[in-house]
């Protein structure tokens, strides 16, 4: 469990750093004077995305999946040594990513910016995670594998495939390489990866967390096992096809763009199936949501999941995409998913695990409650102005005078959205405030607890894993 504690704490720290960096770049867009030489938006933004996606989110996924797999399989992790190497390698990679990205060592492929030496390290780390996770399941003492495990296994295999093929590159020097693919092919494979990074890093493993931790916290089994089966198989099959919706009206062949649109629309069904499966789990225990901030986070998280998985397919329709593409709308959409669904679910997962990992109770439920409300307010304050400014940009770019000439110069559209960029930064600041509250709460919780199992409970935990099946 020491490794799970390590992942949980590191994730929280990377989250704090990553979101702070996010606030910095939001402010840089409003006040360009905040760019200092090489420390400018273009180099810092990848630090934000890498820290929150691969630092914070993946950290919680590692912690949550290692925590749950031991309970669902009633065995210890496959290898303590691999677990420790995994923890330290991952922290080392994220730190090295931050440094190299600030130095401008980047492949420029969004969410795959790391240069080839770090790519190799990521592959080794991922294989270690895979061996450790699959190995744990292989020696399980419970024959049936609960649905959360399917999601994590699928994520491990699919991310391996995506990462390797998108990052095939030929080194020029220690930290410079050229992509094996060029132009449209490169774009095609990058967005096959980029979209599925959203799918298999920010969705599938988070659904694994939801399937385990929501029923545990609610004290009720998942609503429908049949729906879980449908959800799992249809989601992973359909997700992989939707990448070209990032390249609509690009030189990518039309048939590929159309496939991307069609599969994006189909994606609504499994996504909403999963959302309903989670929400309906609370059937009969909605009264608990009133007093339990963790359940509030799960519920609002699932609601944002439903909302952004409806919005996404809409944005993949050509007509809508012609307006939304290249605008702030995309950023609003991403953050309604990333802050609303991913981060809230991750927070709830951490709030669930941390008191148990230190054998105590949460220091302050009221502070967690405050975190929930500040975070929710922050998300709304962030996403709403991004929608407005995105549509504003889209409409201004295409506005024409009666004689057919363009109404606005580009710079006029920059000025028009400045106020919304300010409000967005305020929303981000609120969200970050919530994470700071959480950090205080976690530190206090750890101080009052202890990593060692209390003596009076020791006899109950032969394998240091309290018995708990997820359904």
């Amino acid at each position, binding site marked *: 469990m020491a490794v799970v504690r390590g992942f949980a704490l590191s994730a929280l720290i990377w989250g704090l750093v990553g979101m702070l960096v996010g606030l910095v770049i939001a402010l840089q*867009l*409003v006040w*360009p004077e905040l760019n200092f030489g090489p420390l*400018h*938006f*273009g180099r810092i933004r*990848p630090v934000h995305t890498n820290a929150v996606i691969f630092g914070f989110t993946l950290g919680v996924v590692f912690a949550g999946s290692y925590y749950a797999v031991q309970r669902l399989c009633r065995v210890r992790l496959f290898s303590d040594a691999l677990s420790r190497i995994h923890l330290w390698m991952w922290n080392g990679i994220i730190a090295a990513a931050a440094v190299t990205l600030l130095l*401008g060592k*980047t492949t*420029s492929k969004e969410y795959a910016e790391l240069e080839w030496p770090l790519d190799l390290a990521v592959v080794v780390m991922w294989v270690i995670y895979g061996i450790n996770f*699959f190995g744990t399941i292989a020696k399980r003492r419970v024959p*049936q*594998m609960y649905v959360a495990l*399917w999601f994590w*296994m*699928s994520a491990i*295999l*699919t991310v391996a*495939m995506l990462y390797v093929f998108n990052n095939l590159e*030929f*080194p*020029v020097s220690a930290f410079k390489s*050229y*992509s094996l693919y*060029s*132009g*449209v*092919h*490169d*774009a*095609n494979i*990058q967005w*096959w990866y980029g979209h599925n990074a959203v799918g298999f890093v920010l969705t599938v493993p988070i659904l694994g967390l939801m399937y385990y931790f929501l029923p545990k916290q609610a004290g009720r089994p998942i609503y*429908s*096992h*049949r729906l879980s089966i449908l959800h799992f*198989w249809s989601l*992973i*099959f359909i997700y*992989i*096809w939707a990448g070209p919706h990032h*390249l609509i009206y*690009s*030189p990518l*062949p039309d048939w*590929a763009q159309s*496939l*991307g649109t069609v599969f994006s629309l189909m994606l609504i069904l499994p996504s909403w199936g999963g959302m309903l499966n989670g929400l309906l789990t609370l059937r009969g225990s909605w009264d608990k949501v009133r007093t339990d901030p963790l359940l509030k986070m799960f519920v609002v998280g699932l609601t944002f999941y439903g909302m952004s998985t409806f919005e996404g397919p809409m944005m993949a329709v050509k007509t809508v995409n*012609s307006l939304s593409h*290249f605008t702030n709308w*995309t950023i609003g959409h991403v953050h309604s998913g990333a802050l609303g669904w991913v981060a809230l679910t991750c927070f709830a997962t951490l709030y669930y695990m941390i008191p148990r990992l230190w054998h105590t109770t949460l220091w302050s439920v009221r502070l967690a409650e405050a975190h929930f409300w500040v975070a929710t307010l922050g998300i709304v304050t962030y996403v709403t102005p991004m929608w407005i400014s995105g549509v504003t*940009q889209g409409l201004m*770019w295409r*506005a*024409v005078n009666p004689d057919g*000439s*363009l109404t606005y*110069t*580009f710079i006029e559209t*920059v000025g028009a959205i400045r106020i919304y960029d300010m409000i967005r930064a305020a929303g981000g600041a609120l969200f970050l405030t919530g994470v700071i509250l959480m950090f205080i709460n976690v530190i206090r919780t750890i101080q009052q607890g202890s990593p060692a199992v209390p003596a009076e409970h020791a006899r109950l935990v032969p394998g240091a894993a309290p018995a708990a099946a997820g359904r």
Partner: protein
Amino acid sequence: MAWEWHRPLEARQLTLAVLSFVLVTIGGLVLLIPPYFLQGEITTVPGVKPYTALEQEGRDLYVREGCYLCHSQQIRPFKTETDRYGPYSLAGESIYDRPFQFGSRRIGPDLARVGGKYPDSWHWLHLRNPREIETRSNMPAFAFLEETPLDTSTTQRKLEVLRWLGSPYSDRELEHAVADARAQMATIADGLRSGGMALSDVQAQSEAIALIAYLQHLGRDLGPYAIPLKTAQVEEGR
């Protein structure tokens, strides 16, 4: 309640894992493999040449500084886009682009055809401080580029790798990569100086020069469509 036929699968780790993996590979194969064989889909565009040594160095700087995070290089086939930026992007134009730089946002304007739109001196001043030219701009100042000498220690190696990957550089271009880059730099620096810019020797061989060389190449391979230099648009910044 539960589907009984699915239960045996839930107890077989390997089968479930393999099945899930096969399922995700289908979409990948269908989307990624055919474009390589459907060459007709990627129209070859006459006139498209690999970047010169200096332009390639400039392009690598464009990548290094994350310019693609604010500037797209992909003009969509709408009248309002072609009016603003020029002819829409063709697949054949980016065949030597490793990595591609379509971008995903327009915090700033599209740059697919920015080449020749503004004089070198405009770019020189604009990179130093965009707000000297357009007060409402929120682009970072890239003054540090003109104080940093261009590193040409890997220029030749870069072209070698690119040729190996498919860019048709001649033997001569490989051998003279650094000399060619230096010569093109001198041409640009001389042009700036004769235009009234005071350039130190460091500035004349700086990264800013390489970046300008790249920017001025963008979109100019399409000979017949080449956009004439319009100095009238300079102050407008569109």
